[in-house]
């Protein structure tokens, strides 16, 4: 895999600034066919800028942006992509079927209207005007529009915002199916469980830089934290005073302890409270990993310069 075969999208040393603020600073990114890359980061981290560059909506100040080895502005490259943006008010008076028919007409070999509708779960909505749909239904229609052109690369910007759990899981299943068929997917999301459920690779951005790129497991492993949960009579403040403990909180019954070295704390817990029950030790999840990574990046950059809006 040393050639560019199968590379759907690529950013190489890309820089982009708006009015003196660096939105992207030396970003490298690569996405291959059959792969889902989740782009994570807080607002203003540079995710939208990266996507806008790949869609040809912006031009980079420095570096190279490629879609299928071509400039993203070229229509030949864009005929191979499907797009679901975060905010797009589609024509309210057009019916779902009409929207699908229009979008499919842009592509050389689109899916049939029925196939697109079934994949996105909007078969029962085809005759409905777009404005009469609920927010979740509108997102599903936008997903149908993204996949109707039989794209080799799918851009999904916060796709499941406003969807209920069943709809979200159904969409996840469709995305997995598309990936198996060889489609590449670039996903941005605020739901870390979504990245965990779908992504082959995770790319975390902060302040215009990629601060982590790797598999989901590598991402979790980068964070050494463990979580201990137990039922105990020990007061919160006692545990907080222990040197190994980095964070403690209590819900209704359970004590939640975050630590770097779980073993020492577990030993001490058992010694001090013989009645302790329901002990659980877990490696921290994607959410904790993400928080810690971005906090580190924030601290590093705050010490270097004052925060730029």
């Amino acid at each position, binding site marked *: *895999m040393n050639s560019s*075969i*199968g590379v759907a999208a690529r950013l190489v040393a890309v820089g982009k600034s708006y009015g003196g603020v660096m939105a992207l600073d030396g970003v490298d990114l690569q996405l*291959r*066919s*059959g*792969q889902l890359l989740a782009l994570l980061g807080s607002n203003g981290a540079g995710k939208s800028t990266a996507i806008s560059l790949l*869609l*040809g*909506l912006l031009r980079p100040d420095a570096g190279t942006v490629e879609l299928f080895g071509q400039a993203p502005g070229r*229509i*030949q490259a*864009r*005929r*191979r*992509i499907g*797009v679901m*943006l975060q*905010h*797009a*008010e*589609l*024509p*309210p*008076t*057009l019916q779902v079927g*009409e*929207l699908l*028919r*229009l*979008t499919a*007409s*842009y*592509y*050389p*070999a689109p899916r049939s209207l029925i196939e697109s509708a079934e994949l996105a779960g909007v078969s029962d909505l085809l005759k409905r005007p777009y404005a009469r749909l609920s927010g979740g239904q509108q997102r599903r229609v936008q997903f149908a529009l993204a996949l109707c*052109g039989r794209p*080799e690369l799918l*851009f999904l910007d916060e796709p499941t915002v406003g969807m209920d759990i069943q709809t979200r899981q159904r969409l996840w299943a469709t995305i997995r199916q598309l990936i198996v*068929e*060889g489609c590449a997917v670039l996903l941005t999301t605020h739901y870390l469980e979504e990245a965990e459920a779908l992504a082959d690779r995770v790319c975390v951005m902060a302040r215009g830089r990629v601060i982590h790129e790797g598999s989901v497991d590598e991402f979790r492993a980068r964070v050494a934290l463990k979580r201990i949960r137990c039922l105990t009579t020990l007061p919160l403040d006692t545990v907080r005073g222990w040197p190994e403990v980095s964070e403690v909180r209590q819900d209704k019954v359970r004590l939640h302890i975050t630590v770097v070295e779980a073993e020492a704390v577990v030993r001490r817990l058992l010694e001090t409270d013989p009645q302790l029950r329901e002990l659980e030790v877990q490696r921290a999840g994607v959410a904790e990993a993400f928080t810690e990574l971005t906090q580190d990046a924030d601290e590093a950059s705050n010490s270097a310069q004052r925060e730029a809006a």
Partner: protein
Amino acid sequence: MEAMRSVTQSIPVIEMPRRRIIGAYLEEARSECLRYLRAPAFMRPMLLFSTVFYLMFGVVLNHGEASRYLLASYSAFGIIGPGLFGFGVSLAIERDGGLLTLKRALPMPPGAYLLGKMVMAMVAATIVTVLLLLIGVFLAHVVLSGGQMLALLLTGMFGVLPFCALGMFVGTLIKGQGAPGLLNLVYLPMAFLSGLWLPLSMLPHALQRLAPIWPSYHLNQLTQAAVGLNKGPLLGDVLVLIGFAVGFIWLAERRLRRHG
């Protein structure tokens, strides 16, 4: 990984057949027309302004040759509306709502978006002209030959285009719901100052002399010619309108490319 690689390699880069490209332009135009013809809030002001004025001033208050003159001037007034509002308001709203961004990311053929809106404005302008012709012939009893009616319809269909360009330019200046207000500030004074509401001869002399700077004045010359009241040469008016169209399209394109 082997299987996935073979999948992508087995998909040849499909060139878009010419027939499908033309199809995309047609779909865009069709959707644009359907979309706005179904939006009464959008169509009503464009259709009502000129027809209600004409009913009042051309049927109830005036008769004979005055009705003929007013048929032409209210046609000009009615034709301008779909151009300014159909193009300007929809562009301003779609820039605001993110639809234009999505269209630019999608492989829509170049220009299909603007061509679609042009066709929509031409259809709307034709509907306005037909309504005014019906009122003129059946209620105001203006006698027109078949050729004159056809000339007025064609003037409406193509005369809307320079105002599409002006609407497009205004649509690039302002985003969202502020556009109708700004467009009315262009539309109504321009119509008045170029003699579309009252004949120019009833306006102060200074305003009469200024009238030819407005594109609407030249459109009125063409509609007056269509109903047989302007016997003068028309080439100058046509050229001025083409010049306006080209100039505003150039300005609007430049702003769209720079600011999106």
